[in-house]
């Protein structure tokens, strides 16, 4: 099935000897969205006739709307700090996957149509007409950016490539050149309520099955409530948590924590998705629509709090944008953060003794953790700086006998993307996903070798699926990947210590 070379892992992580290979990934393009996927999102079904003018108009709108975008396009001095920071560049060697080069695909067109020097001097100042070749290049390379923002950590000007890549995708959507994976999924959210297209009866059946499993396994009546009016907490979680392994172990963990804490909670069939692919395609309008499903569910169910499950980009949207997109949240209980992350919720209970966890339950496991890009670089957990790194580690450490961190240049705010973020978790981009996972795989292989690590915890549905898929290509087992709350699920002591 694989017709390309899997990168060879170095013994020393984070020291790369990437070989420059121009054009190495020029062939790779995700499947084009069809009219069925585009039209429900308000985009043209296919490439429009006057696409060049429309694209430039849309670019102008975005530059006006987002001052940050104009600043990013104007301020790059080509210092090269970002060049070797992208996992896709490191894994593929394609120079167009260097963040500066990726930005320049968009910047050159911006310069041509929106700056006086570009209009007058054209290619002398790196300005380019928007031709079909340029559009094709955009389609290819703006779908080789997972919007993880690692490059921006190293940019002295703080230029955010993710925002440029989002803008490029938005421009393309507006001329009918959308990406199938993302647009098909967003259309499903509008129609059914989640990325999977899991209708309410199937969701109810799945949750009932989980109740039976947990009852059989533990003897405790842990519930998985759906659409319960008047519940205190609305849990919004990625639909992969209902569907896939190891995601579902995390969902079972959340349910056990809620059960043991004695709180009333519910999920919603209307807002049965935490993820918000509107961000991946750079569409404020789509982000707004998807977010407001959560608002409607919270109002309809009359909840007092909102808690998010383990989903990286959902947490970015929730933590950073939810109030602007779907607020004000004045109908929720002001005593609690809006929204709250499930890891915050569990951490707090463990610290206060509200739940008890026994690390012996995960005997024999040596854990490391993969910081998800959107959690690491676009959000926080708890009240202290760096809480998004501290809280997951504290929860994991409480639940396992041994924890080890990976190489310092690959964790925290320098974490590498799993290789499948930003709307790229699709089979048609498998080559990119496998190659882009290389930096993380290298760091993981080292702690397996040197520290006896047996498992890597993740806190994002995309990371969990991506690693499950790519680990075997690097000679590691897919079962190594666990949900943070899968560990909690094993370790939590049920039936004791109610507050």
């Amino acid at each position, binding site marked *: 099935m694989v017709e390309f070379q899997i990168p060879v892992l170095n013994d020393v992580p984070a020291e790369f000897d990437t070989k420059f290979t121009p054009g190495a990934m020029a062939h790779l393009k995700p499947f084009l969205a069809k009219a069925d996927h585009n039209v429900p999102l308000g985009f043209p079904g296919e490439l429009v006739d006057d696409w060049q003018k429309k694209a430039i108009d849309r670019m102008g709108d975005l530059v006006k709307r987002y001052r940050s975008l104009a600043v990013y396009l104007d301020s790059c001095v080509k210092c090269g700090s970002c060049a070797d920071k992208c996992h896709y560049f490191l894994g593929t060697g394609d120079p167009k996957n260097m963040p500066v080069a990726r930005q320049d695909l968009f910047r050159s067109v911006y310069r041509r149509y929106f700056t006086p020097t570009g209009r007058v001097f054209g290619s002398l100042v790196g300005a380019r007409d928007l031709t079909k070749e340029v559009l094709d290049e955009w389609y290819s390379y703006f779908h080789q950016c997972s919007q993880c923002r690692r490059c921006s950590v190293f940019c002295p000007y703080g230029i955010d490539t993710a925002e440029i890549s989002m803008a490029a995708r938005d421009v393309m959507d507006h001329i009918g050149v959308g990406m199938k994976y993302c647009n098909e999924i967003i259309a499903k959210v509008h129609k059914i309520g989640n990325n999977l297209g899991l209708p309410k009866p199937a969701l109810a059946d799945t949750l009932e099955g989980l109740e039976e499993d947990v009852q059989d396994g533990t003897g405790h009546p842990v519930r998985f409530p759906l659409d319960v009016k008047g519940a205190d907490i609305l849990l919004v979680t990625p639909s992969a948590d209902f569907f896939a392994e190891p995601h579902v172990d995390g969902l079972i963990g959340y349910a056990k924590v809620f059960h043991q804490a004695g709180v009333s909670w519910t999920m919603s069939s209307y807002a049965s998705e935490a993820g918000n692919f509107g961000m991946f395609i750079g569409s404020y309008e789509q982000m707004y629509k998807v977010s407001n499903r959560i608002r409607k569910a919270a109002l309809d169910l009359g909840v007092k709090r909102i808690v998010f499950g383990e989903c990286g980009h959902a947490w970015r949207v929730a933590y950073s944008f939810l109030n602007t997109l779907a607020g004000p949240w004045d109908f929720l209980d002001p005593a609690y953060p809006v929204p709250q992350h499930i890891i915050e919720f569990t951490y707090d209970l463990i610290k206060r003794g509200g739940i008890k966890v026994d690390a012996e339950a995960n005997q024999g496991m040596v854990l490391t953790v993969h910081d998800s890009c959107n959690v690491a670089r676009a959000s926080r957990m708890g009240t202290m700086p760096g809480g998004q790194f501290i809280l997951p580690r504290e929860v994991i450490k409480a639940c396992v006998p041994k924890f080890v961190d990976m190489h310092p240049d690959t964790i925290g705010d320098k974490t590498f993307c799993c290789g499948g973020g930003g709307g790229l978790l699709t089979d048609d981009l498998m080559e990119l996903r496998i190659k882009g996972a290389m930096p993380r795989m290298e760091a993981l292989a080292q702690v397996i070798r040197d520290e006896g690590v047996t498992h890597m915890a993740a806190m994002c549905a995309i990371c969990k699926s991506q690693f499950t898929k790519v680990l075997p290509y690097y000679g590691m087992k*897919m079962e190594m990947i666990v949900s943070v709350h899968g560990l909690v699920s094993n370790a939590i002591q049920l039936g004791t210590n109610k507050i």
Partner: protein
Amino acid sequence: MPAYEIGGKSFEHDEEGYILDVNVWTEELAALLAEKEGINMTSEHWEVVNFLREYYNEYQIAPAVRVLTKAVAKKMGADKGNNKYLYELFPYGPGKQACKIAGLPKPTGCI
């Protein structure tokens, strides 16, 4: 639109080989798809494929992995009711490869 041809009958499919209309599926088509995937269909494979179709008819979606493993455990024994066994049957993942052979649409999302 590309299509599979079997005995003069054609089955349209998408870029990745998933048929577009779940209702036109036949066992012959499943056998052809399995061959393309490099899978030798045993009775265990058919059990999974048939369960996927039954579940889809009722719920308009493929079953979650837990639902599937439970059904497999019931039909084939507890030792086979796990994700690992399903991957042995369908190495590219039960969710996607088995769905393709069963004529179901490809599951989407963060899976």
